[in-house]
């Protein structure tokens, strides 16, 4: 019954993705924990965090697609929201280390002891509670996006200008987080985590659980985005991608729509970052680098913007390729990535999903033509155009 409801509401491919995500959320950890290593279906332990990382990237690409694909806001700073979510989770994990750090200070993280700080800065209060950290994972990126978006959309900063100032935003944060005085570990960032909610981060079972959480979260956020884009609000969002002024003149508050999408997108990016950090074990200012944010854009573009499905596949595909290339041919990776940027914009403006639908349509059209040909007598060959006959 649930499947039927899903199908009728979300359509075939989206429902299939949600089901598939939920399935791997259960099957992959099972295959890792329950099956013996010699079984061909066994998922090795090192693979699970890697795949979990990809799922987090996919969530980030999904978040970007909500604003770029559906509102026409090309954010070149989504990595900033991702990193902020990651830092919020990292701060919780840091507080969990407690007296097990190198300097064994019960309250202060190692880097603060190293910097000779006497007490915890005020913004580190509360991060010993998991619920508080989770709240901050949503609130900090959300608040930044809300304030930034409120200013930007209200004064009608659009197009490339918006892209450039989002890039400046993440660049400014990059510089800020590199400073030791900021109180986020400076250059080294936050690392050396021990456990989450009392479970050791090195344990296979914890990693499997984090993987499952990433897959489930991706399915949930995907369902949320899908629901939004299918709603009336989604229609308005798509309309303003095409003709923003017209939507405004009809009487919609364009700024509010954009602000909603931007803030929600930042929150999803924050969740992605928060799930990413415990799986990779480190968060440092490098995550704010403008290049990272632009890479997210290419995942989205490769998969197909404005489809929600596409960016998820794009992120998995590009990152899988990256892992393979950087290990096998480290010299070639940047060439390949650069070529991908150029090729996708020139030849695949709608990404892989767009290509698939295009092929489907062509296939259907040919099928229909063939059917028609069978029914009626074959038309006489046009004598003037010999090429068309072939």
């Amino acid at each position, binding site marked *: 019954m649930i499947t039927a409801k899903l199908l009728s509401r979300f359509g075939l491919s989206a429902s299939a993705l949600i089901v598939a995500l939920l399935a791997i959320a259960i099957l992959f950890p099972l295959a890792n924990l329950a099956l013996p290593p010699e079984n061909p279906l066994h998922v090795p332990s090192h693979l699970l965090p890697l795949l979990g990382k990809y799922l987090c990237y996919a969530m980030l690409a999904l978040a970007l697609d909500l604003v770029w694909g559906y509102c026409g806001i090309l954010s070149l700073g989504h990595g900033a929201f991702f990193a902020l979510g990651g830092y919020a989770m990292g701060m919780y994990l840091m507080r969990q280390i407690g007296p097990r750090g190198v300097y064994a200070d019960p309250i202060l993280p190692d880097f603060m002891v190293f910097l000779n700080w006497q007490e915890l800065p005020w913004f580190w209060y509360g991060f010993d509670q998991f619920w508080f950290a989770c709240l901050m994972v949503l609130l900090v990126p959300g608040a930044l996006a809300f304030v*930034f978006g409120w200013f930007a959309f209200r004064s009608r900063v659009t197009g*490339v200008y918006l892209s450039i*100032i989002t*890039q400046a935003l993440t660049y400014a944060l990059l*510089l800020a987080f590199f400073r030791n005085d900021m109180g986020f570990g400076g250059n080294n960032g936050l690392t050396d985590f021990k456990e989450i909610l009392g479970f050791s981060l090195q344990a296979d079972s914890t990693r499997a659980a984090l993987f499952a959480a990433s897959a489930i979260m991706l399915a949930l956020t995907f369902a949320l985005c899908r629901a939004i884009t299918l709603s009336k609000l989604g229609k308005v969002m798509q309309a303003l991608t095409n003709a923003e002024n017209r939507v405004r003149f009809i009487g919609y508050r364009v700024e509010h729509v954009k602000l909603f999408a931007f803030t929600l997108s930042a929150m999803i990016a924050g969740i992605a970052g928060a799930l990413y950090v415990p799986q990779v074990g480190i968060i440092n200012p490098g995550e704010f680098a403008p*290049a990272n944010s632009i890479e997210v854009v290419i995942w989205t573009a490769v998969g197909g913007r404005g489809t929600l499905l596409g960016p998820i596949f794009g992120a998995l595909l590009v990152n899988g390729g990256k892992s393979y290339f950087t290990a096998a041919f480290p*010299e070639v990776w940047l060439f390949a990535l650069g070529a991908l940027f*150029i090729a996708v914009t020139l030849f695949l403006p709608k990404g892989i999903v767009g290509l698939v639908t295009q092929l489907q349509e062509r296939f259907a059209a040919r099928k229909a033509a063939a059917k028609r040909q069978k029914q009626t007598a074959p038309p006489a060959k046009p004598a003037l155009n010999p090429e068309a006959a072939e």
Partner: protein
Amino acid sequence: MYSKLLQLVASALLVVVALSFQSAHAEPAPQQLVNALATGKLKQKPAQIEALAATKNPAIIPVLQALIEGELFYLKNDGQVVIAPQSGPMIDAATGKPLSGLNKSSLKKIKANNKVRRIARAAIAKLTLQSPVLAERQAAVEALFKAAKPESLSLLLEAQKNETDPQLQTRLAQAIALISLQDKAATAKAQQAAIAQLRSLGGQQALALLQAFTARDDIAPQEKEAATRAVEAIEKSMALWGIGQNVWYGLSLGSVLLLAAIGLAITFGVMGIINMAHGEMVMLGAYTTFVVQEVIRSSFPGVFEYSLAIALPLAFLVAGSVGFAMERGIIRFLYGRPLETLLATWGVSLVLQQAVRSIFGPTNKQVGNPEWMSGAYELGGLMLTANRLWILAFALLVFALLLVVLRRTRFGLQMRAVTQNRRMAASMGIRTPWVDAFTFALGSGIAGIAGVALSQIANVSPNLGQTYIIDSFMVVVFGGVGNLWGTLVGAMTLGVANKFLEPYAGAVLAKILTLVFIILFIQKRPRGLFAQKGRAVEA
């Protein structure tokens, strides 16, 4: 009468000849006195040095120098005094002629202790202070000025009596003031004079001395007040010079920003193309300079001074042709889709970076500074380094040239026509695709020559472009798109603002504050400082 005049002229000539002879070929140091150094005990050395110094002959300076540094020896057999440096040939101390065929084992060192060294040093100072050559006297005074030791006071006072050069005279007076202010035994009158001197001198050293002076409790209130006022005056003028220095640093940073952004002002400002590979064009220019210098070093070392002049047109060509290829190959298919252009050019930038990394390696490359670009000038309290000065001048020159190209040439006219109304321009017979291609090539080429200039002050590495790209976009967006003057004003404003924030906030925070300021500024004026007006804006 006539003959008397002739006689006078002849004698005058004789004197002149004699004088010039003396200064050109200083007579050798008196053999006897120099060789005397080899005899006698340590106790007798001061008297021997005094006797040498009394000759006022500059030729004994190297002898005394060698004595101080322990390089003065004498021959065991005949007592001739010899200078034997650590490396290089031995020299006859008296005549200054090189000696050959001598063995170190036949030498014996002339001993000196700290007292002897001090006396020798004072003798040298005295001799150089009385040297007939102005430059030597200046150097001696400067050395004493820097050291500011009380024991050199009498020397300086003596030198002041004989000094004829007015500039050196004031410098001497300043040095005397510097020293006499530390002298506990100085009279009130001398203190007053010294305070006045130091006040007019200004600078960090004088300030520190005056502050130390006001803290002393053995001085009369009158002098104390004068000194306090002098301190205030110096602090005020130093603050003013400090502002001037900051403005200079700001302009210098601004010129770098201007160079980096000016090509972007064309591609982004005039054509509306977001070229994320702009920074890589700058990098290509810098690497062109590196290659040119390498070729010159290995094949034509004589023309190294002109390497930058050779690199400029080459960098323009290299970056310009890459830009041309980019426009023809990629960008022309993406007109009207600015966000896609942004992504494609980012891809190009990745490829270019990796290509340079594969060819030249990931490390920084050393690009040399020609002679004329190193050094510094002092202007009052300002310190102007030559390379920054050149870059500022160069940036302004490039700006002016570009302005002329846009305003006064046929190509510039066509470019502006295409920007304003593409279809109308096409109807008038302008080949708009070629204008696009050449405009983009021009913008890229200018980025290339910016790279030549930046190679002189920045690290030449594959990441060179990345460091400038965001700043360049900020400058163009802040100044106003489509307006070259806006770019100039934007670059200079941002540069100066950044440098004024730095002392209060630190370099990184200053940069963050500038970025935040621009982000806020764009909210207020989305089209920049000098916005284009009219319908073209909406396009």
